[in-house]
């Protein structure tokens, strides 16, 4: 499974920059890599912009008629009229994919934000209060992370009946763990900084130190985690929808579109399956590319490759 969240313990061994000069062929390679990295960031930013503009603007001009059925046009292969082809009741797949992407992105962003808020709150609680609270909370995090995400999500959605909110809640409830770990670790490393100690010795209360001095310092990390969480949330939403445990079919997300394309696929028509899947991959790669650049900026010492 794709693990898009930066977990502290699962980070791959990273190369720390070394003082000794590298051999020439290696500096050349590094230069090429830097060049391709800049290109990658530019391409990623462009793709994200295109995706966001598309899902915001296209629905303004091209309303989607879910009820429309054009049986004469059903399952047309991709052509100039229908670049993505048509589905089994003759609807244009390009337009449906745009709407599906919109639903997926919306669910992904909301779920990722909710997960980040929960994670930051829990992490801040553990890191700022410390002691027994910290121990109990982190044990709970351990317990939570012993259940596979998707399975817990399936369980929650099954119990609360599929729908938009159960999906958002189940994705949020299963994805705050890594953020909580990151925020807690950051807080612990910040607590012994001189400016924090100065605030404490100046008589600031624990709450004030946390809210005024500690939280602002961890916000970039939490923000990065939130951005990296969006593709992860989209991925999970699409998996739930594919299993028939996601959004109702009149709010078809990309995963639900792949699910409903299954019968067409088994009849040999590939395009209703191919395009929604590609539209899951493209924003994921673009967001990961941007987040990787952001990570390098806030953790310059760790020049790690972007880890999905």
């Amino acid at each position, binding site marked *: *499974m*794709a*693990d898009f969240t930066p977990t502290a313990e*699962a980070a*791959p*061994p*990273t*190369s720390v920059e*070394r003082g000794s000069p590298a051999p020439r062929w290696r500096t050349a*390679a*590094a230069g*090429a*890599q830097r060049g*391709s990295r800049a290109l990658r960031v530019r391409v990623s930013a462009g793709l994200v912009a295109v995706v966001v503009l598309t899902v915001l603007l296209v629905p303004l001009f091209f309303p989607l008629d879910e009820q429309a059925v054009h049986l004469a046009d059903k399952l047309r292969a991709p052509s100039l009229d229908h670049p993505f082809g048509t589905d089994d009741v003759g609807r244009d797949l390009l337009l449906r994919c745009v709407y599906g992407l919109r639903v997926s992105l919306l669910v992904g962003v909301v779920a990722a934000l909710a997960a980040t808020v929960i994670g930051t709150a829990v992490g801040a609680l553990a890191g700022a209060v410390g002691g027994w609270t910290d121990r109990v909370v982190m044990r*709970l995090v*351990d*317990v939570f992370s*012993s*259940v*596979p*995400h*998707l*399975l*817990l999500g*399936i*369980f*929650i*959605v*099954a*119990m*609360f*009946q599929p729908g938009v909110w159960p999906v958002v809640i189940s994705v949020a409830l299963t994805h705050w763990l890594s953020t909580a770990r990151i925020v807690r670790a950051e807080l612990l490393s910040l607590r012994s900084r001189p400016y924090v100690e100065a605030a404490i010795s100046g008589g600031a209360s624990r709450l004030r130190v946390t809210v005024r001095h500690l939280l602002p310092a961890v916000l970039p990390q939490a923000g990065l985690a939130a951005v990296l969480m969006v*593709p992860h949330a989209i*991925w999970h939403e699409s*998996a739930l929808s*594919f*299993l*028939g*445990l996601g959004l109702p079919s009149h709010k078809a997300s990309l*995963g639900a579109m*792949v699910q409903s*394309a*299954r019968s067409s*696929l*088994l009849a*040999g028509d*590939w395009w209703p*399956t*191919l395009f*929604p*899947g590609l539209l*899951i*991959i493209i924003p*994921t*790669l673009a967001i*990961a590319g941007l987040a990787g650049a952001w990570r390098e900026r806030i953790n310059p010492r760790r020049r*790690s*490759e972007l*880890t*999905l």
Partner: protein
Amino acid sequence: MTRTRRPGLPWLPMARLVGRRVLFAVPVLFCVTFGVFAIAAASPFDPVKAYAGTAGLTASQENLDQLRANLGADDPFTVRWWDWLTSAVTGDLGDSSSLRQPVAEVIAERIGWSTLLCAVAFTLAVLGGTVLGVLAARRRGGLFDRAITFVCYTLEAAPPFWLGLLAVWLFALKLDALPAGGLTDTASEVATAGQVTHHLILPAAVLAVSQLPWFVLYVRQGVGDAMDEDPVRGARARGLSERTVLFGHALRSGLLPVLTLVGSRVPELITGALLIETVFSWPGIASATVEAATSVDFPLLAALTVLATVAVLAGNLLSDLLYGLADPRVGFDG
């Protein structure tokens, strides 16, 4: 040259680690089962309706009340949780409401097929990931490296069910080389080894491909970093052949720590199996989970969630044992 005798495995510290983890697993399972029952209690889920199924629509109120009393549906969820827990310890996990058979029987019937699928896929992913990762790490930034990295990121972003469906389209429909799903041919009654193998190839390959990127990227990073380390530089400076440097020095320090992490991939493996078994109608435990979820079969879902948790904990333990063995500095104190 006298060979020093290799010390035996550190059995005692390992046993102590296992013991500690088993003790830790008890409260974890306690919490997980409690959470599962709490979620069910907070949801609109009605065990009586679920148990009675369509028969519940025609049953008299009297019968339903009787059923309600039998199932203890009006007890607080903590009581039901405790009842479930105490009977689960004796091996009675309740009855599946969708499959109409004891949960323990469902698990016993299906777990073998899931294990087979996951073991084959995992082995393929580890082997393939190691080979590709080492090849990519040999010249980082090279053409092969960049190509393989790009493919890996793309594959990692791709939903496994989508990969599975495309594989069905290509290999089962277009090339007609492999069956599209199931365990055996529809006509046959018994599962022969040949048929199962034939049906296993496609789901195992897709599951392996969906797990592969992680291994490739981690092996590449681990071995690539090791290539920059002093022992490797020293070996190069002594004029040893690239081959010796790679296999004798870089792989030893770079590959081993990564491979010990395989145990921590159990959650991802379960996630992949949930999707792949559904796509290929593989009669395993993961597809049973999805069926249980669509028909809101609480007893089965609860048991399978616990089972998955046990698998994850076992995977973590395996990882820590391997890590301690691979790197004696780490030890078995975790």
